[in-house]
């Protein structure tokens, strides 16, 4: 009998504690989700075989794209302004930095531009 009364008393406090915990957990999950959204795109689950291959390819294409754009800009500046080879030298380096930035964004270790104010 005493046991029974104790049981009836318990749930009220238990439930309050539980709902508080649930809320806290929900908030944490929301934070996690925001982070996830800020992180890029694809980010396929790290794993074996082909998805790893696809990810590697994706990251390398990001790097190469940056260097390529830098090289094209540098070459064009050289061509138009006749400052060869300085445009090429400067812009290939800038392109390389941009490529590294692309890779970091693609891998999700650096926020994308505009990531902060996505949910206005």
């Amino acid at each position: 009998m005493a046991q029974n009364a104790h049981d009836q008393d318990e749930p009220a406090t238990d439930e309050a504690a539980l709902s508080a915990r649930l809320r806290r957990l929900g908030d944490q999950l929301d934070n996690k989700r925001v982070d996830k959204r800020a992180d890029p795109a694809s980010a396929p689950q790290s794993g074996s075989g082909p998805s790893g291959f696809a990810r590697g390819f994706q990251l390398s294409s990001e790097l190469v794209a940056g260097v390529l754009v830098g090289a094209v800009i540098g070459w064009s500046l050289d061509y138009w302004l006749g400052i060869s080879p300085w445009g090429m030298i400067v812009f290939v380096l800038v392109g390389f930095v941009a490529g590294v930035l692309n890779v970091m964004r693609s891998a999700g270790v650096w926020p994308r531009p505009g990531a902060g104010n996505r949910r206005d």
Partner: protein
Amino acid sequence: MADPIHQFEIVNLVPLAKIGGTEFHFTNSALFMVVAVAITALLTVGATAGRQLVPGRMQAASEIVYDFVGNMIRSSAGEEGMRFFPLVFSLFCFVLIANVVGLVPFTFTVTSHIIVTASLALIVFFTVLIYGFYRHGFGFLRLFVPHGIPIYILPFVALIEVVSFLSRPISHSVRLFANMLAGHITLKVFAGFVAGLGSLGIVGWLGGALPLVMVIMLTALELLVAFLQAYVFTLLTCIYLNDALHPGH
């Protein structure tokens, strides 16, 4: 052994016009683009023609695709991004159907040509650029100016951001193109092993069974890649469109 690159050859089917010195043909690539559009139209317009409250199979499928794309836009570009829904939905359906149609034997994979994926990526790129400037004016340039950067390295950082922005269509298009190209070549090479070993008699048949199993597994994998790459292409589109909507850092 069959040439694994042969499947990507462009064949002129019907001569259309001759402008200047350039001849325009209706090619097999164009044919399969038309096929992809026709299938998409059939699946969306045709399946929802009945507009039943309780959807049939086809209607449910097209509703799922609609919801899928809609949720993708909302989660990455916000509710405002829904104004780009027609563009994003068309891109997703075109890429997805083109990828999947390309898996059928004797068809042509439109998305395995970089000119096609680059055109799609450039459409997105210029949409972002034009809409960004139209909507925010020169405020769109805030995209290239991160918060909290000391003023003395700001020009350098902005330059890097600009180059990074310009490199987007390259990685955007190369990703889809390379995945489709590599997948189809791999499939063809392994299929070539089956035929090559099969001609060696009974021992060859036993040996040929191994690449045959491999080809079956690769086909399933390619189906996954076809969906995944369409998804990734669309998701990147959404992320880039988000920059046009909210350029600030």
